């Protein structure tokens, strides 16, 4: 038994993936939904104060409501209006993706729908629906 460890081929070692390797990965649709879920979640977490600010100025009074509107036309501080719109568009995508991917999660948890085909199809539906709705709302936001 003792000599088996000496003659054995060295087993492959998988270190952590390096950032530069990630860009060359080709993820399946379900993988894209998964990483998109994470990115959109972190994005919304970081922009949460902005969302609460929008909630505040849009609701507090009619005067503050005008400031809310002005942020999108005249801008906010040194940030131009188009930039606020762009950030909002990012938030819209993040919310839609996170929402639809979340429903997919809940559905799979509840029904144990874990076939390969359902995973692929529902991932494609998630990506398609969130991007389409983002485009529609983005059009309303910018034009």
């Amino acid at each position, binding site marked *: 038994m003792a000599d088996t460890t000496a003659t054995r081929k060295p087993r492959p070692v998988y270190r952590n993936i390096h950032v530069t390797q990630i860009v060359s990965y080709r993820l399946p649709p379900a993988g894209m939904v998964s990483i998109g879920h*994470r990115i959109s*979640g*972190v994005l*919304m*977490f970081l922009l*949460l*104060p902005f969302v*609460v600010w929008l*909630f*505040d100025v*849009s*609701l*507090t009074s*009619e005067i503050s*409501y005008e400031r809310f509107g002005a942020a999108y036309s005249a801008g906010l501080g040194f940030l131009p209006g188009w930039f606020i719109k762009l950030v909002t568009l990012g938030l819209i995508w993040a919310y839609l993706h996170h*929402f639809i991917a*979340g*429903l997919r*999660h*809940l559905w799979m*948890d509840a029904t144990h729908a874990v076939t390969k085909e359902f995973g692929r199809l529902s991932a494609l539906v998630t990506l398609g629906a969130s991007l389409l709705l983002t485009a529609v709302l983005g059009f309303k936001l910018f034009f």
Partner: protein
Amino acid sequence: MADPNFGSKRLVVGAHYGLRDWLSQRVTAALMAIFTLALVVQVLFGAKLGYERWAQIFSPQWMRVLTFVTIVSLAVHAWVGMRDVWMDYVKPVGVRLALQVFTIAWLVGCLGWAVQVLWRL
């Protein structure tokens, strides 16, 4: 025995908050989805959206309670999610702890602000 700790009931490892976190993330997600639905329906099938209409949507007590539930749910949901993210990508314990403390402060701060906006209306 009242609390068996053998056979299939034997507790081997862990702090056993995994299921609790998993479940609370799903429950809070469902609550926030209900709020989203309530808001979208009122925006789509109501008067033309302006300050009047927007403030009117948040004036009934049931909508305020639902919004409050959503704010608290969001804090819990985002805490579980961000904690997962830090645990996956940040290995040094000190940095991870600092980020977790930042996450809690960030979320509690936003929660307080949002609740203030909601209940002073």
